[in-house]
């Protein structure tokens, strides 16, 4: 269940969002070339959605495991995850840079200045909040629910699924928090992505956030603000879609 709400709308969401924001941006007179804004929106969504999807597939099982088992050192693991939520994105960017740089352990894969490197750093950034909030949601489910499932003859897996079902809103919130962290993040994607567009203005590794950073660097604060508004609209749209899917799930 956890992966579904974000994965399926991903493909369906990108196209209309791009078209919608493109037409909104066209209303304001901006010094951008044709296709520029839509391409950076595309790269932003592509990188963040894949990073959050991979992160969810990793985090939710980890949260389930942590929520259902007791082992020595569990407190330490939780502390590490919680600390990860406050990890500065620039530091993550530097770590990923060391990893993917030509001199680093993954240097031969030539990932520096690519969207793959950006996905890696956003994965690192999104994983702690998704894991921590999912874990909180899972541990927050009343023990009676778990016991009832077992008493009614369910297996351990059945009990886990029942708890997951109860915790689904919390997990959806966790995924949204991870998505929020990923798409609004600027420090690490700037370092490992390089903020590249082609000469004709089509983004290769430029996201909305790094485009905003570029406009601010050039002192073009108004255009930076407009791009900021596009980013907020985008996050709002993604949130709306996820919430709507969540509600549909309840009605079913």
């Amino acid at each position, binding site marked *: 269940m956890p992966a579904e709400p974000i*994965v*399926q709308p991903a493909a369906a969401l990108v196209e209309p969002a791009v078209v919608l924001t493109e037409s909104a941006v066209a209303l304001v007179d901006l010094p951008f070339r044709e296709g520029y804004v839509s391409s950076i929106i595309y790269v932003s969504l592509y990188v963040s959605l894949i990073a959050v999807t*991979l992160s969810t597939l990793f985090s939710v099982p980890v949260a389930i495991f942590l929520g259902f088992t007791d082992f020595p050192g569990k407190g330490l693991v939780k502390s590490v995850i919680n600390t990860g939520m406050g990890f500065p994105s620039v530091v993550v960017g530097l770590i990923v840079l060391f990893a993917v*740089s030509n001199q680093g352990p993954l240097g031969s894969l*030539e990932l520096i200045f690519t969207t793959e490197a950006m996905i890696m750093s956003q994965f690192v950034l999104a994983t702690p909040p998704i894991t921590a909030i999912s874990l909180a949601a899972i541990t927050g489910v009343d023990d009676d629910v778990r016991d009832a499932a077992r008493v009614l003859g369910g297996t351990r897996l059945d009990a886990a699924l029942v708890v997951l079902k109860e915790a689904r809103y919390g997990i959806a919130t966790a995924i949204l928090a991870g998505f929020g962290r990923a798409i609004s993040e600027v420090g690490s994607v700037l370092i490992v992505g390089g903020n590249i567009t082609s000469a004709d203005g089509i983004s290769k590794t430029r996201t909305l956030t790094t485009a905003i950073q*570029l406009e*601010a*660097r050039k002192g073009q604060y108004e255009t930076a603000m407009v791009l900021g508004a596009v980013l907020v609209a985008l996050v709002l749209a993604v949130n709306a879609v996820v919430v709507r899917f969540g509600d549909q799930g309840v009605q079913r």
Partner: protein
Amino acid sequence: MPIQRREVLTALGTGTLAGLAGCSGMGGGGGEEEPTAGVTGETLTLTTTTSTYDTGLLDEIHGSFEEMYGVTVDAVAQGTGAALESARNGDADVVMVHARGLEDEFMRDGYGVNRRDLMFNDFVIVGPEDDPAGIEGTGSATEALAAIADAEATFVSRGDNSGTHTKELNLWEEAGVDPGGDWYQETGTGMGEALNNATQQGAYTLSDRGTFISQRSEIDLVILVQGPIEDGPEILSNPYGIMAVNPGVHENVNYDLAMAYIGWITSPEAQEAISEYQMNGEQLFFPEAVSEDSDFQQYVPEGWSSESSDA
């Protein structure tokens, strides 16, 4: 209960597949180009300064290179210090920067080969119109800075190890002033932000002419000390150089394409395109790669000669 479980498993499976699809899509990105003759389809990574990129020059001229060779140029605007650092790590194929001292160090350390002088413009000292330190019209950049320091008038420094910052530090040294105190503010920002910052505080700053021209309409600063383009002191000149990353140090770099790029950008056609690039009706960069005279110093660290013991 069992039916529900199957649903959930299907959902999980779908999610995993979608995730994997993302992965394979990612992996395929790099190996897309078909093996064709020459350099077609390859990508050249250029790390450069913010001034060449933010003024729009590179986007304007790169189209013709990409068309000529059927390649893509990834221009990464980082500031001189960071651009050279990326190249040192083998993450760039070619570097275009503007701080001769740092370029020389880069060559001496063996990372850069085949340096060419590319183009120049100049730095200007800009400040508020009322000019509290009274430097307007000063013929010497160092005297102007000394006057700013004496008056303790606010000065905004880039503070980011960029070419402009390096030049500013050299100027302070030449002026015999060790800047510090409340009036000297290191912002750690790009040129555009530094100019905005200076406008808001009514402060002085050192700017490259190109960025200043491209932003002039939005800031309340005026040029108080001109650079050599407008007959100011030679010390404010701002030369840009270009170098290939040494394939002997980093064997992964695309040296062929880097040399093709250097050949192209120092050719009469590309140099002409640089001189024709204008913003707000003014020329931003002045080409200097094409010349009748020999200028051997452009190929080696400044002051180097075969007689010296320096290797």
